[in-house]
């Protein structure tokens, strides 16, 4: 993993506690794990636990009052949260936490980019993006610009038309972006970076005061472990989408759309389908339900969305064709046309 040379201040570390400098800062201030195990630090452990609980529900953690008034607590609660997660050893929770922390950092990065775009302290957010993800961002006439190749390597994973290169302002090998778009581009990598940092840490013996919260995390993770029923009649693309979600990995929007439209077309209800998305790292029950109802046509303009065609899925790299798919042009036909094709 890349070693940063960012020289962040304490407020920066409170915003971006996953930076390697956060650990150094705490060591320099004389904090150690044994000390944090003292009952006086119980509020810190609670804060760290709360940070994980918030993340596991698909929300983004904010300190009380929304301001970083106690930067030491912000940094420490992140570090303790990482230790609790390591001790619990549950990948789904780590992934959810990483994604939520990435979204939290994304918000700060965006603010820092925008607020400081004409000042010298723009250095830090730009350095974070450059050092951690290898993207050189420059400021040009109040806008942020990155190289076309850097843009394509990230934007190609977004399916909305406005992210296509042809719909961006491009000139002299650079793509022009807002601060929001700049940090949106690196969200996935930021989550992966935080997750890799957590994975790379070796777990020290943990204080007894941490142990009950570790047990609570195991119980919490149980909520996400309900195995959805997967029918053997499903086409391979749908099975793949379910498997990705089961592993707690991120299924792209187009994959979720496929799953929802397919199951709706097979006669399942939004209530029956919603639990399948429980393991998604950014799961939010309310939003999931709203989107399922929208797709089913029971809310919004009443348009019932159709399952995407095999051609469309192929172009989105969501097709995992098997011989039984021969002769079908839409996943809905899987199994129905099969008999005819073999006849």
């Amino acid at each position, binding site marked *: 993993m890349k070693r940063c040379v960012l020289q962040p201040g304490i407020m920066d570390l409170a915003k971006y506690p996953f930076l390697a400098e956060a650990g150094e800062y705490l060591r320099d201030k004389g904090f150690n794990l044994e000390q944090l195990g003292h009952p006086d630090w119980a509020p810190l452990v609670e804060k760290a636990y709360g940070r994980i609980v918030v993340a596991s529900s698909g929300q983004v953690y904010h300190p009380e009052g929304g301001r970083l008034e106690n930067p030491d607590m912000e940094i420490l609660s992140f570090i303790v949260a990482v230790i609790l997660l390591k001790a619990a050893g549950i990948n789904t929770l780590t992934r959810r936490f990483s994604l939520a922390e990435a979204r939290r950092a994304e918000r700060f990065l965006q603010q820092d980019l925008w607020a400081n775009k004409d000042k010298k302290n723009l250095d830090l957010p730009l350095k974070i993006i450059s050092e951690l993800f290898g993207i050189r961002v420059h400021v040009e006439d109040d806008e942020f610009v990155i*190289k*076309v*190749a850097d843009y*394509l*390597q990230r*934007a*190609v994973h977004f399916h909305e*038309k*406005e992210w*296509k*290169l*042809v*719909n*961006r*302002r*491009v*000139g*002299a*090998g*650079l793509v022009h972006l807002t601060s929001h778009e700049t940090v949106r581009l690196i969200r996935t990598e930021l989550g992966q970076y935080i997750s890799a940092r957590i994975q790379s840490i070796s777990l020290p013996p943990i204080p007894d005061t941490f142990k009950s919260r570790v047990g609570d995390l195991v119980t919490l993770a149980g909520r996400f472990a309900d195995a959805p029923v997967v029918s053997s009649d499903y086409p391979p693309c749908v099975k793949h989408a379910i498997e990705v979600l089961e592993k707690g990995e991120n299924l792209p929007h187009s994959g979720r759309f496929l799953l929802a439209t397919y199951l709706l077309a097979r006669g399942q209800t939004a209530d029956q389908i919603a639990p399948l998305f429980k393991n998604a790292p950014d799961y939010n029950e309310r939003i999931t339900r709203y989107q399922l109802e929208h797709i089913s046509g029971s809310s919004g303009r009443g348009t019932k969305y159709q399952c995407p065609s095999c051609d469309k899925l192929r172009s989105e*790299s969501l097709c995992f064709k098997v011989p039984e798919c021969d002769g079908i042009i839409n996943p809905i036909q899987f199994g129905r046309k099969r008999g005819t094709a073999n006849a």
Partner: protein
Amino acid sequence: MLERDSALVENAIKEYYFNHFDLVRIPPKPAQREFGYQKINGGMTRHISIKDVKELHLLLMRETPSDVYCSNAYYSFPSMPMSEKDWQGADLIFDIDAKDLALPCRKDHAVSRCGSCGTVFPGSRPLCTSCGSPKHETVSVTCRDCIGESKKEVKKLVGLLVEDLGIREEEVEVYFSGNEGFHVRVTNRDYEQLESQERADLVDYIMFNGAIPETFGMKRQSSSRSELPEMGEAGWRGRVATTLFGSKSRAPKASRQVLAEGYSAFQEKLEGMRQTLGARVDPKVTMDIHRIFRLEGTINSKSGLAKTRCADLDGFDPFSEACLLGDEKVEVVASSPAVIRLKNKKYGPYENERISVPKYAAVYMICKGLASTV
């Protein structure tokens, strides 16, 4: 191809590689590239590793291939099976082919060859004029207009690469493909790591595919003049503004009209611009990061012409500069309703005629299926 025809073509190619091997150029990092070749009437041999020009020369002399290819990609192990090659990167490549441009001149020199009796007849008809068979293949004969229109597409492409994508002109190499179009190779470190899907989006940019009105300030509801593109802006916004407004003085009136016509009309205008402003390249070629691409200076067996670098695209005449096979006279029987121009000389039309022509013209006609050795 008949055996006696292939012997003539093969000898002409061997003689070319013997006399003009200096025209065959290997791109940078040859030891990391995969090479491949075809022989007349033979299949493709690929996954070959060649470390330098000398080794290539030996291969050309030993095998006399009809077509020679080299990967745009660089690998750690180029001669291993594809899954084990360890892809390291690839040049950006583009293919512009006259037959994909739907040019009006094509109907004037379209020729068909019956798959049953071999009769050659003008145009494209459902049944053979001689035996009535429905089986026939289209023979691609290229004219100056085809080349001229292809050059226009090359210029559009190079303009987009340089102005929009920041690629330096010296990093762009333009080649006549050896048959009906042009190849463009870009060697730029920023772009060599792009994967297939990323190259697909880049091609959409080049072709102006997938542009939405919102990008140009046109919304479904309440668009404002200030959000429309301005002439002089970089990239597609600038080009669209120039097409919409024509001149700065016309811009205020024209923009009012654009707004009045609304979203759908704007969408149609964009579609029209896609046809005229986008560079019409073959997207499959650019997206393919494992492709083996014809090697510079080698003969194209579809025509007997050589893939040739175009230092001066405007002045480049493929029918002279890429026509490099020997010129001693050869007797053939030719059936060509289309006129063929090579080295500033006309050949044809012929109607099953025994003729004596330079070897390069004989090979051209044999490769196109329009002639056979006596």
